[in-house]
């Protein structure tokens, strides 16, 4: 991937084009493109969940969610 010079590290040109295109869109349009509804197994099967600690939440995700959802820690 080619790099466009912007900032010390440079940004891949494809990403830079994405960022610039997004910057030209008004906020309402950006949000319309950004929020999509998909069914996430298990995670979307309860109307309310509360966890005492973030660690409890992370452990619950790792124990109950399919790994392909990506909620497990590396």
């Amino acid at each position, binding site marked *: 991937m080619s790099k466009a010079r*912007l*900032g*010390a*590290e440079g*940004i*891949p040109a494809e*990403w*830079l084009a*994405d*960022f610039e*295109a*997004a*910057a030209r869109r008004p*906020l*309402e349009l*950006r*949000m*319309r*493109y*950004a*929020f*999509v*509804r*998909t069914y*996430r197994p298990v*995670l*979307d099967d*309860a*109307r*309310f*969940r*509360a*966890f*005492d*600690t*973030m660690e*409890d*939440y*992370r452990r619950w*995700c790792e124990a109950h969610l399919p*790994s392909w*959802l*990506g*909620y*497990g*820690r*590396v």
Partner: protein
Amino acid sequence: MAAFDFRQAKEIRDVFGKHAVSYLFIGKSGALLLGYPDTTQDADVFVKRTEENCEALLDALLELGFTFTDSQAAEVRRGKDFIQLQNGPFDLDLVFAPDGIERFEDAWSRHVDVEGFPVCHIDDIIASKQAANRQRDRESLPRLRAFREYWLETRGKRG
């Protein structure tokens, strides 16, 4: 349920504002408000955990149309670290103790206002995802860091 939309984001902003809830958009929804182009499903808000603020939050959520049992309402009042809401007009994650951020006041001091939406600084969004260290965060961080470069360089030029 339809996807979260701009009208609902404005409802959060307006109703939370009416009830004087101290909060910040965080996570990918926060990054999206800053201009990061990506997709997500729900909004995440980092809420200041004080008794008064949690009470105000509960009132605001009820006004928005969320429904709670007595025990669920008590958990919101307590400000449990993480609460996932799918019991209202849209999905909303309440985060009272995001990974990688010590105190709400620290994040507030760095926050960015985007058309009236209070949003965590990109550095806090990145710090939170870095600390969470989930597979999905690991995959998104390089692009998010590139966006940070772009955002820092161009934010002064935007209106």
